[in-house]
């Protein structure tokens, strides 16, 4: 198995993201590629195959590099992709690896020029003396071609690994966060960025926490949050000062002393933070749970959902195999009523905020054929296992779902297992 894994490691999906209309879905992988899928236009004759996603464009976004000054290899793995709000017929996205952020344009071309004066269309030269009139080339229709071209490269601003990028609602700036700093960029300016958060201590031995994720508020352009490895979330207001080292709100839940253990700090580290579409709430994911915070209440989350509480007794072995450091992401559905996040054994979880119901589903080729309805799965923590239940001990920790995305308007979700992308949609009646 290690052999097979090594062969395909470049294909491991490292990020999944729908664009603002949901018509396009982008994935990034460990090999530095970005693959974009496009939803098919609705087909009237086959109502059951509503809007399937097909490959639209594939391009190499990042290449492996070597930093000669620091003797460091820079992986080509795509850490994050973010779509820009659409500004004309073309689509734009930002993709980033550990160090460099790139702005890509994805555009369609369906015409090409025809007609030369001095040569034939196939490149053979004409005798210049036969040219008696000038000919202006004419555009003629051709097969649709999708092109991806790099428009801007934002480099040399991060000493540590970039974990997040987020586009501001002012449409002209975005932030990029690494372990210790957050920078603010203008989308059209590549030669400078402004440092807005810097938590690097003067002496690195005093380092106690790192930034794990950061995001702009969806409609308040001056507000952003960043989460830390200590389980706190800081909300900053860029109006207050140019350097946002002092937060304006600190979201933190007091620790339950009864649950205190060697692993407490590790599992409280926040792996992802996402604002709701409304901007009223934010969701954070730590190792065992998903929490929803009301921006107006800092002392505890308004909702907490257990993702895989049955692992609490397994933390020791999860620490030994490093799984405890897995960074699970989370996402909202279009109306902010359901949240989704991944787990192990190719399971992913959804929580309905209104009914408080939750469900575990599995993304796998063996157990589900295309166009079949997913069956809920259950994991039994201990004791007697009922029929259809899976024992905790038989979970496969190599099969993890870290990245998921939810269509902004419809009930269509994208789930990335190691190197497969699954797209599920609500049953069509």
């Amino acid at each position: 198995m290690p052999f097979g894994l090594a062969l395909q490691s470049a294909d491991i999906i490292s990020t999944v993201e729908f664009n603002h209309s949901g018509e396009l879905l982008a994935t990034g992988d460990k090999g530095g590629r970005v693959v974009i899928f496009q939803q098919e236009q609705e087909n009237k004759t086959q109502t059951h195959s509503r809007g399937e996603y097909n490959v639209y464009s594939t391009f190499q976004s990042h290449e492996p590099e070597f930093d000669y000054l620091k003797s460091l290899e820079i992986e080509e793995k795509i850490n994050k992709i973010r779509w820009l709000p659409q500004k004309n017929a073309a689509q734009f996205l930002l993709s980033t690896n550990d160090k460099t952020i790139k702005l890509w344009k994805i555009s369609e071309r369906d015409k090409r020029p025809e007609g030369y004066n001095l040569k034939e269309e196939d490149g053979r030269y004409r005798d210049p003396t036969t040219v008696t009139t000038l000919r202006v080339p004419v555009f003629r229709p051709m097969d649709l071609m999708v092109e991806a071209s790099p428009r801007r490269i934002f480099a040399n601003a991060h000493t540590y690994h970039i974990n997040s990028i987020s586009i501001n609602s002012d449409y002209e700036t975005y932030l990029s966060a690494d372990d210790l700093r957050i920078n603010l960029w203008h989308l059209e300016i590549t030669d400078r960025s402004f440092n807005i958060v810097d938590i690097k201590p003067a002496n690195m031995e005093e380092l106690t926490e790192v930034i794990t994720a950061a995001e702009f508020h969806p409609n308040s352009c001056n507000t952003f949050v960043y989460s830390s490895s200590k389980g706190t979330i800081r909300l900053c207001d860029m109006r207050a000062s140019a350097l946002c080292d002092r937060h304006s709100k600190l979201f933190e839940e007091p620790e339950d002393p009864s649950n205190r253990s060697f692993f407490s700090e590790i599992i409280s580290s926040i792996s992802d933070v996402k604002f709701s579409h409304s901007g009223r709430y934010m969701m954070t994911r730590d190792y065992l749970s998903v929490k929803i915070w009301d921006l107006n209440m800092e002392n505890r989350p308004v909702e907490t959902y257990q993702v895989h509480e049955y692992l609490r007794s397994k933390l020791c072995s999860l620490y030994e195999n490093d799984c405890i450091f897995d960074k699970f992401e989370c996402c909202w559905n279009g109306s902010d009523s359901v949240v989704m996040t991944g787990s192990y054994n190719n399971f992913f979880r959804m929580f309905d905020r209104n009914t408080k119901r939750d469900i575990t589903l599995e993304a796998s080729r063996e157990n589900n054929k295309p166009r079949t309805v997913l069956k809920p799965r259950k994991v039994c923590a201990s004791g007697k296992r009922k029929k259809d239940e899976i024992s905790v001990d038989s979970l496969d920790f190599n099969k993890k779902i870290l990245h998921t995305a939810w269509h902004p308007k419809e009930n269509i979700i994208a789930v990335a297992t190691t190197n497969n992308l699954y797209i599920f949609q609500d049953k069509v009646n």
Partner: protein
Amino acid sequence: MAGAAGPGRVPGAAGGDGDDSLYPIAVLIDELRNEDVQLRLNSIKKLSTIALALGVERTRTELLPFLTDTIYDEDEVLLALAEQLGNFTVLVGGPDFAHCLLPPLESLATVEETVVRDKAVESLRQISQEHTPVALEAHFVPLVKRLASGDWFTSRTSACGLFSVCYPRASSTVKAEIRQHFCSLCSDDTPMVRRAAASKLGEFAKVLELESVKNEIVPLFTNLASDEQDSVRLLAVEACVSIAQLLSQNDLETLVMPTLRQAAEDKSWRVRYMVADKFSELQKAVGPEITQNDLVPAFQNLLKDCEAEVRAAAAHKVKELCENLPVDGRETIIMNHILPFVKELVSDSNQHVKSALASVIMGLSTILGKENTIEHLLPLFLAQLKDECPEVRLNIISNLDCVNEVIGIRQLSQSLLPAIVELAEDAKWRVRLAIIEYMPLLAGQLGVEFFDEKLNSLCMAWLVDHVYAIREAATNNLMKLVEKFGADWAQNTIVPKVLGMANDPNYLHRMTTLFCINALSEACGQEITTKQMLPIVLKMAGDQVANVRFNVAKSLQKIGPILDSSALHVEVKPVLQKLGQDEDMDVKYFAQEAINVLALA
């Protein structure tokens, strides 16, 4: 190319049989779609040549449709195209056909790249002037409306820049429509468009009737100034300047000032920064009375703002603000309302604020006069001269001339000297470099006596600095000093020391001698050069380091024209000939070059 364009001047004449002159044009047209961007760019830049050859008819019917579709190209090509089309009216048949240029520019005005869009808008503005009033309403205004109601914000932002050019020449019904369109862009969903509208608001207001400014522009301005996005609000500050110029004092007070006061106290530091940054313009626009009642208190607040960026921007404006106050009562306002806050800034916690202040504070002395300067400003200058941040000290020193005029530099010299010495020995070579550059200025103001006594040794010490850039700057500095103090001074104080370095054990210092001679020979004149410098240079031709020897060759080439011809032939020529036989190839090369340049072969 000019010849090729010849036949094209007669419309339709390009169709001649096997015309040789067609060939270069054919190449240009073919290269419009070459794979090499550079070639495409070249062709686009010669678009007028192509159009001339094609004649106005074919330019309109064939070339322009082709160009309209080329929006897939690289930005630099599109930028060049957008620029070219602005001057194309003649090539499509004059003003009657100017509207033919609108389609390609319309598509360029919707591309994502801001520079291209801006250039397309600029060209559209240019072309709008060439439209007849009828064509303007038939073609140009509909284009503006199309852009203004486009699906994507790129086209709507472009539209914002076009209203002001078509408004003055439109009929009154169309005018109302144009105002309506502008109004809706001011409350567009996307901040991009609101920003574009806010930045064009002032320009649009200028072409409107005063009634419309009051009834329509002012409400728009008020809305934009309280937009939820601070990036929009800060642009309203700029618009404020233009709008304020259009209104009477009374209207200004009731219609604009509430908004401006609000902006000066905005919750977002970026908006307050903008107010500080535009302060002089605002001051001029609102006039002396409102300045005194409103802007001066606002300025005080900006000077003690909690955000350093805002304080720094305000500090930059201190001098301009004071200068523009009405002479009557100026001194009282400055002494009572500005200076107390300026004093605070001298010991600000942020070095950018202090350094911004240091760059303008000396200018206050001319405004306040001798007595106030000595009593109130001098302590501030002295404090800044002792500031821990070198940039602050440098900024004070670089503006010494203002003070010199008012109180004479002697008042400062006690504190000046330690400050200069400290900067001259700063660990950062860029700081040392900066102070060297002010040396000629200082020397001029302090006088030769003071200079010889206190600063001369510093200037000589820089010649042996371990950073080349400093040694180089020190050399240039010597030249400027000699220009100031004259050849006699040079002969007595500089030349002996410079020539003494020719025997230094360090070859870099020996080379510095040569560089100094290069720089000084002209200012010192023929006699000193021939009698004192030349012998040293010639002696150094026997140096054991090749770098020194080839620099001797270069120096001889440099000072050769200053020497008389007998010295050149008797003394220089043999040495250069000997160096021409040197074992080192660089020495040979430069010796040969010198022989050629001095025509000694």
